[in-house]
């Protein structure tokens, strides 16, 4: 395991990004590691781009990911995945939800959503994993469990034990949603296993 694992979570306000960060931090701590995280509240939560950073390891100083960047970029949306690339370290891995959320600058303005977002992502990170997490979440029983699908995929690529991820997830989401989130997590985890 590298000294510190750095995870950049990117997406759009309201997608459950803060919760995903909490699960990662707790899974790390259940594994006996130190975890730090940084999130942004306020104006950025009104449908804007949202970035959350989580770091874990034997000892962690900064709550923000320092150069050379993130080991993992966990992207809830394709455009934000592209935006997150500049924070990824060489050899890092992008795990992206295939969903596209059109920003206002495209709907009402002259900006263009990159049609070739997936190609661009794969060009910058050839081993990037792009998954239809919304469909997986729906298959698991709840469209809102997208973050658990993505966490499942991430979990497989980290050195933290699966059991600790599941405990962390179960302790973080509301009791009535534990089951569906664990199912979504399992779908993500097993998807990642099959792709390896």
């Amino acid at each position, binding site marked *: 395991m590298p000294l510190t694992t750095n995870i950049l979570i990117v997406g759009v306000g309201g997608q459950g990004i803060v919760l995903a960060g909490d699960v990662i931090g707790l899974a790390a*701590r259940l594994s006996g590691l130190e975890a730090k995280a940084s999130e942004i509240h306020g104006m950025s939560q009104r449908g804007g781009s949202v970035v959350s950073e989580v770091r874990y390891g034997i000892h962690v100083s900064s709550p923000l990911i320092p150069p050379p960047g993130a080991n993992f970029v966990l992207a809830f949306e394709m455009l934000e995945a592209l935006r997150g690339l500049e924070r990824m370290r060489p050899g890092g891995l992008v795990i992206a939800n295939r969903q596209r959320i059109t920003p206002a600058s495209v709907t009402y303005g002259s900006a263009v959503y990159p049609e070739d977002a997936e190609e661009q992502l794969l060009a910058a990170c050839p081993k990037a994993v792009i998954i239809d997490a919304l469909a997986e979440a729906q298959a698991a029983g709840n469209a809102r469990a997208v973050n658990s699908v993505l966490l499942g995929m991430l979990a497989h690529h980290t050195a933290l034990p699966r059991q600790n991820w599941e405990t962390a997830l179960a302790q973080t989401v509301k009791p009535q949603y534990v089951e569906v989130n664990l199912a979504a997590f399992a779908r993500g985890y097993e998807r990642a296993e099959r792709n390896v």
Partner: protein
Amino acid sequence: MDLILTGNQAIARAARDAGVALGVGYPGTPSTEVLETLVTLEGGHAQWAPNEKVALEVGIGVSFGGARALVTMKHVGVNVAADPLFTAAYTGVAGGLVVMAADDPGMHSSQNEQDSRHFARAAKLPMLEPSDSQEAYDFTRLAFQLSEEYDTPIMLRTTTRLSHGKSTVHEAPAETDLPAPVAPQNPQKYVMVPGFARARHLVVEDRQVRIQEWAESADITKTEYRDKKIGIITSGVTYQYVRDVAPEASTLKLGMVNPLPMAAIIAFAKEIETLYVVEELDPIIEEQVRAAGITVIGKANFPIFGELLPGIIAKGLGLEVKPSATATSGLPTRPPSLCPGCPHRGVFLLLKKNGLTVSGDIGCYTLGVFAPLNAMDTCVCMGASVGVAHGLERAGLDPAKIVGVIGDSTFLHSGITGVLDMVYNGSHGTIMILDNSITAMTGRQQHPGTGKTLDGMPAPSVDLEGLLKSLGVQDVTVLDPYDLANTEAELKRALAYPGVSVIIARRPCMLIPHEIRPKLTVDADLCKRCGKCLRLGCPATGKIAEEYNGKTRYLPVIDAQLCNGCGVCAQLCAFGALKVKE
């Protein structure tokens, strides 16, 4: 397992464990969650004040009564609270008084990035700055002790990354045997008339010297020698960045950023070959180090604006930062926007449509400035919409073409006196209070107009109409901003009214309990693809490109997941193509 807490949560728990009688403040990112957390803790008491000045005055009163108080605000809130702050430095305290000022370098959610350390220097108040959640807890506990020991309010500075950063916290035993409240009985100390204040000023100056002496050898002044070729003086969360970026460098971490432990700084500087100061925002440490005759590299290498993110610190230290991967195309920006069904949206559309000059204010509705609404011309600070609207009128502009726009919480914070001024000085201006019955932007906090207190208990709700009438406003109108035709008619009438008009546009925020309305859908057969509905900029509306007679045209679509059924878009459609979904 220790707790994992944000800096704000840690401060709240420390305040509770320090036995504070009250936490008081006004919401403001990134400070808001301190009181929201404190009120949920067993034994925690907290309340919102209408603004930061009142909050601090209440905190001072708690302290004068012999109990402990925590007062919280964002950096610009300190401007509002500055009047009591400067004189509280003279009176000192009875019970411990800690004033938390949350700075926002990088302006994640603020109108400026002023540096609160200036206030500590100007008011001659000791200021502590924690670097992670554990220190947020420890320094808050320490601040209450120092406040009582040195008879002074203590400022606690955080930044966005400290307030909203998460790390582990180990709590210390709570204090239990705090003294009972006692009425203040020392006018020479607590009544600041010139004769008494002159004597207190000397106390302030002496106190600064004594607490500086304490800081020289205190645990919170951390000298860490490693490689002495590079030494870095820093404080707050930037210390953590420095440790990651330059792990071999020696560091002097300052837990107290006013007054500075100059002897410790001089001793550190003597050991170091190349000395840096890494501090976010203004060169406050750097200038004092220079004034001591020490050669140091600061703002020459590290920007005076924005956050000093780890990559920026690395560059400033001359370390190589390898370029990273990027997308190959330009990426459209994704600014924040008003929520689907937000009651403010239609109002801004009408203000734009009528070609009005709009003086705006601080809150969600400041988002009215962005495309496609483009309906705000000025925004300065809390409450300024009212004064600026009146000033534009006094500049000689036609008041029938000017509207000041302010939210309910902002109006109660500092809009009332502006309206009083308009009435007093014979204005013909028009103010719209966008009353969504909550402090929305900071995350749905209660205020004196919502009928609830911070702890969720019922409270009297201010009667805005009655308040305005008693200020002397003759023309007060309450309307439903979802009704565009009526809103526009009332707006035109108010603008023509020869006196002060206030329109209260009342509809609850979409993020608090509100009327559930049927969602809308687009009838593609009736739609003429004019795009008028898209000019609202509602996140629930999108468009699908179609080929038609060799040209591309766009069919609007409504996302049923996002639509809140406000029906404002349907009112814009001349063809009846936007309908309630069957």
